[in-house]
């Protein structure tokens, strides 16, 4: 078989450039962010990449104060579950929003967090 429509490497290359990408099933229209081989709704193997707007609202959040060793210098920091305008959800690190302003329903916008060769999902002010 050919390589999947969107590999993790492709996803994070695009994210690093500021573009959040999902996959949509050409058969049933199911939308998903993490690329997967089969559509969980219809089990077809017919994904196509689709760019997302990157806008969403906070569905839940936490402020992490006891961090893993690699993140100790960052603490306290916030991680949120964000529901994107297109309907799919993803977790991301919150950047440039004061911790006391965080609230469920707060609008946020995707922003990549780049650390050396690693790219992580982030969300900043809308």
């Amino acid at each position: 078989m050919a390589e999947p429509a969107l590999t993790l490497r492709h996803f994070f290359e695009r994210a690093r450039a500021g573009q959040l990408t999902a996959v949509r099933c050409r058969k049933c229209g199911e939308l998903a962010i993490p690329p997967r081989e089969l559509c969980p709704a219809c089990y077809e193997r017919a994904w196509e990449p689709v760019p997302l707007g990157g806008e969403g609202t906070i569905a839940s959040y936490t402020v992490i104060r006891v961090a893993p060793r690699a993140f100790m210098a960052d603490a306290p920091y916030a991680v949120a579950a964000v529901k994107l305008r297109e309907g799919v959800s993803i977790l991301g690190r919150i950047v440039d929003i004061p911790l006391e302003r965080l609230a469920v329903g707060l609008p946020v916008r995707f922003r990549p967090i780049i650390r050396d060769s690693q790219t992580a999902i982030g969300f900043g002010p809308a």
Partner: protein
Amino acid sequence: MRRVAVIGVGVTKFGKHDRTSSELFAEAAADALADAEISADRVQALYYGNVVGSETEHQLHTGPQAASILGIPAIPTTRFESACASSHAAFRHAVMEVGAGVSDVVLVGGAERVLNVLTPDSTEYFAYASDAVWEQTLGLTFPGVFALIARAHMQKYGTTEEQMAAVAVKNHKHGALNPKAQFQKEITLEQVLKSAYVADPLKLYDCCPFTDGGAAVVLASEDVARKSRRPVWVLASAAASDWMLLGDKRDLSRVPATERAAALAYKQAGLAPTDVDVVELHDCFTIAEIVATEGLGLFEPGAGGRAAEKGMTSLGGRVPVNPSGGLKAKGHPIGATGAAQIAEIVTQLRGDAGPRQVNRARTGLTHTLGGNTATVLVSLFGRG
């Protein structure tokens, strides 16, 4: 499937130990065999749970290591890793081996050692059970995972920090009655509410501790069990999974894997939630207990917090939950936890639980959750 029973149980003291995880397992396993009054040469297989041995002890291949240290090196053995649900996953597979007629006597257990490393390191190792690409890169911790669940539950149902604190107070009260528990002291609601935030809205006293410990149970076929002194029958053992990523879950206030595993287990046993007299469930965080009591059908979705606050899950309440003290007070040696929960339910159904005994307990349930709620095991046990 043949009927399967637990005929012996063993649990080490939970807390800090200067022994390897395999040594801790071996102590619990020898105790379980003695309790079963069965010779070690009757054991035909070992199903073993261990999670962070690679990280804290630089040890892989812990199955044969555990069997060797116990002194029965020749039997087939496999290590199960399903995060915090590991030894309960091992148990389900062992039940199938005995139920299928492959073996008549099988040992199940697990052990963990983590207090030999510092908290930032154990926090990191436990986070390996979340996704390395999508979640670990955010600095997400396990308290963080359950904090996201807690906030969603508070938002949807109005659950309060006081209700979560009531779970901690209750489980410490139970743990004070358990000589094997890591924390054998009661705490007040005020102490919980005034403890420092670990991952808002979860505070230190909402979280279970890091724990060293081991646990084991002996499983037997009906023929063998009938000759044993006090068998407790396995009425069901079911597993379910869910999306690995928390972001893929549609409703963070619920744990679909718990609901699926519970439905399967009740169906296998021909029982309903109202038939359950005593429950040992996965309270890694106070909110986890509230959500689990709802997912297991003991209370309606959203009613778990109020139920805990009203004492409905306390010893003497409508359905006592975690009479052992739970993960919160008894402790949570992750590879051993499922087996330890089963050992407590067996002890309860035998009427051997002393001051923490649940009156007239005939049917018991164990629930163990792994990772970002992606693995859940539910088993049911009966005396008859």
